[in-house]
């Protein structure tokens, strides 16, 4: 069971989903700094401007992209009656996600290295 593509897809969806929920809470807190004034907002933004968080943005991009593309795959499997292709669709989702993360992650990495 733990080696099946079904389990892999289930696990990746859950892990990226939980990571995105945690990020959402952080995002609401950071941007919400504006409610306490410009200084609070700027200090929270500065905190996230550290190189560590900039590089972590690539992980965020990977989670968003994979979670979204896997969601499209799920909608296709459920509503387009293509259950027999679900394995191939999972591999396609992984491949497309990898391409998009590399294409989107490189500019983020270059920006982070620029400081």
């Amino acid at each position, binding site marked *: 069971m733990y080696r099946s593509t079904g389990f892999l897809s289930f696990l990746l969806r859950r892990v990226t989903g939980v990571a995105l*929920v945690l990020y959402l809470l952080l995002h609401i807190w950071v*941007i919400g700094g*504006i409610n306490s004034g410009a200084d609070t907002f700027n200090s929270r933004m500065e905190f996230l401007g550290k190189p560590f968080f900039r590089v972590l943005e690539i992980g965020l991009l990977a989670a968003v992209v994979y979670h*979204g593309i896997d969601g499209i795959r799920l909608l296709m499997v459920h509503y387009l009656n293509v259950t027999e292709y679900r394995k191939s669709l999972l591999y396609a989702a992984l491949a497309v996600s990898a391409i998009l993360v590399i294409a989107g992650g490189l500019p983020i990495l270059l*920006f982070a290295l620029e400081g």
Partner: protein
Amino acid sequence: MRIFLMQRLTAIALLVFLTLHMVVVHYPPGHIDVSRVLDRLHDPLWKGIDIAFLFVVLVHALTGSYMVITDVERFDVYKRALAGIAVVAGVALFIYGTQTILAF
């Protein structure tokens, strides 16, 4: 079934909202500055879009979290309490987030 449907409908809406958000706000990296954000958010239409985005993302995140937690058998008995916590957290986060969007 109701939660499953909420997940599906918000997922479809998020594909649109998130793509728009990523393109308008985040790309290319490094071009975000406060004046650009302020310019955009002075337009009431963008405020409306961002509030709708906040609502959809919160429903998706909280129903998703509820489904992940209730997948664990031992938490099955707490379903009602978890649903209550999700609703309260959702309302609180929506009010806080809306306040933030309107503050810009």
